[in-house]
């Protein structure tokens, strides 16, 4: 395992009181593998990712353990953290337009990353930048290097973003909904690109998404998040075939399947408020498999071979 997250908690202290955005998350990713992190909006996926890279601002209190190749990321001194970021961990953001600096050309932004993380001279940096553009499937690289983010299409921006992140050859790539802002054909291309790069460069990849189809298509393992907690983790094939958490099951039922005319079952209600956690299971108010115990006692994790789930009804699902 290259990345191990244990009992990660993020509390935002807001004016109206604390918000438990991430509440005890456990994750692990091995080199060369892909972990999918799925959940609804507000389930804490992105916050988890940003907490791992220590990108959250001062008003967020982060606790727990994030271990990168045996090193404690949360306790890293600023110097070490700077070398870790970029050199070892890269992030691809959801909105490529927002994540690219609008006043610098794509070439300048790739070059900047190369200056910071390699010892190449100007000429080799340019050659490397062209290589990177080629690697992420941007043709006519020489022209593209001189262009600005607004001259790129959405898909091209995301490719450029990936090229910048890859400039330093990171060992772990955190992708925060990298395809949500893109249309379906481009989405497919970008996902294939990420998978190919993962294999070629031997990176570990964490893919945050709310799209179960994307998970099925790309990931080996999946962690399903709800209300700041991981409710189920396991191999994608097993989790999708036999969900052991009522929420996972409900999510899968709400997803269009291959059968034409099959009815979708929506999940009733709304995602819970994170500023007043209930003593029981967070999903319990919306759950159709609810038992009396769910309202009073938070389910603990059950380990079953390669699976982990926290659901009182897990055994009978």
């Amino acid at each position, binding site marked *: 395992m290259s990345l191990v997250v244990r009992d990660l908690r993020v509390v935002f202290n807001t004016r109206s009181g604390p918000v438990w955005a991430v509440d005890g998350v456990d994750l692990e990713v091995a080199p060369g593998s892909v972990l999918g992190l799925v959940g609804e909006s507000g389930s804490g996926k992105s916050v988890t990712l940003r907490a791992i*890279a220590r990108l959250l601002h001062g008003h967020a209190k982060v606790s727990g353990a994030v271990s990168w190749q045996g090193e404690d990321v949360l306790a890293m001194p600023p110097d070490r953290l*700077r*070398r870790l970021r970029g050199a070892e961990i890269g992030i691809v953001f959801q909105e490529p337009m*927002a994540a690219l600096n609008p006043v610098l050309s794509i070439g300048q932004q790739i070059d900047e990353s190369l200056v910071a*993380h390699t010892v190449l001279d100007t000429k080799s940096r340019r050659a490397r930048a062209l290589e990177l553009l080629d690697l992420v499937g941007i043709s006519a690289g020489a022209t593209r290097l001189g262009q600005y983010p607004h001259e790129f299409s959405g898909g091209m921006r995301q490719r450029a973003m990936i090229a*910048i992140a890859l400039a*330093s050859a990171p060992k772990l790539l955190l992708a925060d909904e990298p395809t949500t802002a893109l249309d379906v054909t481009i989405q497919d291309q970008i996902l294939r690109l990420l998978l190919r790069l993962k294999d070629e460069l031997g990176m570990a990849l964490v893919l945050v998404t709310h799209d179960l189809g994307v998970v099925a298509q790309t990931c080996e393992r999946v962690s399903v998040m709800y209300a700041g907690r991981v409710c189920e983790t396991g191999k994608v094939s097993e989790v999708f075939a036999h969900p052991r958490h009522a929420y996972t099951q409900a999510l899968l039922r709400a997803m269009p399947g291959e059968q034409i005319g099959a009815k979708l079952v929506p999940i009733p209600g709304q995602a819970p408020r994170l500023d007043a956690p209930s003593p029981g299971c967070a999903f319990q108010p919306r759950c159709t498999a609810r038992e009396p115990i769910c309202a009073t006692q938070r389910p603990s994790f059950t380990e079953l071979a390669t699976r982990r789930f926290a659901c009182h009804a897990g055994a009978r699902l």
Partner: protein
Amino acid sequence: MRAWLPLGTGLLILTAFLVMAVIPESIAPYDPLGFDFAALLAEPSAEHIFGTDQFGRDILSRTIAASRIDLQIALFAMLGPLLIGSVIGLLVGWFGGWADALFGRLADIVVTFPFLVLVIAIVAVLGPGLINMYIAVSCVGWVVYARLMRGEVRIQAQADYVAAARVLGYSTARILLRHVLPNAVRPVLVYAVTDMALAILTGSSLGYLGLGAQPPTAEWGVLIADGRNFFTTAPWISLAPGVAIVLAGLGFSLTGDGLQALLDVKR
């Protein structure tokens, strides 16, 4: 386009003043310092369009000659506050914390005083003269720039590309100068153009009061002050420099407004 009319008019006026400032001797009909004892306090006429003063000096020529010093005032009385304010705003906006809190209180104190009153008070302490006026304007004017810059930096600091720069392991100095500053500076620069109108007014007000440019330097405020004693008999002495101040101020304001609309800067 809404932006082009004010921008074009403003730039036209400013270009005219710039030409006057660069080659006054080719435009002015007379030597601004040349005495003509045949035409003392002459009314505006075909020879002297804006009349002459008590020494027979041509008012129009003196006003044109003064545009150099007044444009300099507009530039330097803007640059000082711009530079100081931008640096402070960038730092407190990024780092926040106690420095930001301290800045907030200090800014509150400075803006409590009317701008001109505070500038005059500082110049009165330092002594009259252009350099001291620049110092005084910088001491007071930086607050507006710092506030603008701070607000913009705080917005940009939340942007994903800044998070991306952090996660790429760039140094804080690099993130600030190369990523945050270029994206935060636009409203500040637009304000700076509008601010030059205020700088002209401040400069000529202080010149009029004898605290800015010193006679015999031809400066619009000084020229207006020259006409004070003859206001009932020869009001035209103060007229041309007054018109020049209004026009230059208008030029900077229009240009600033045009740029604001063109670059879609919200204030």
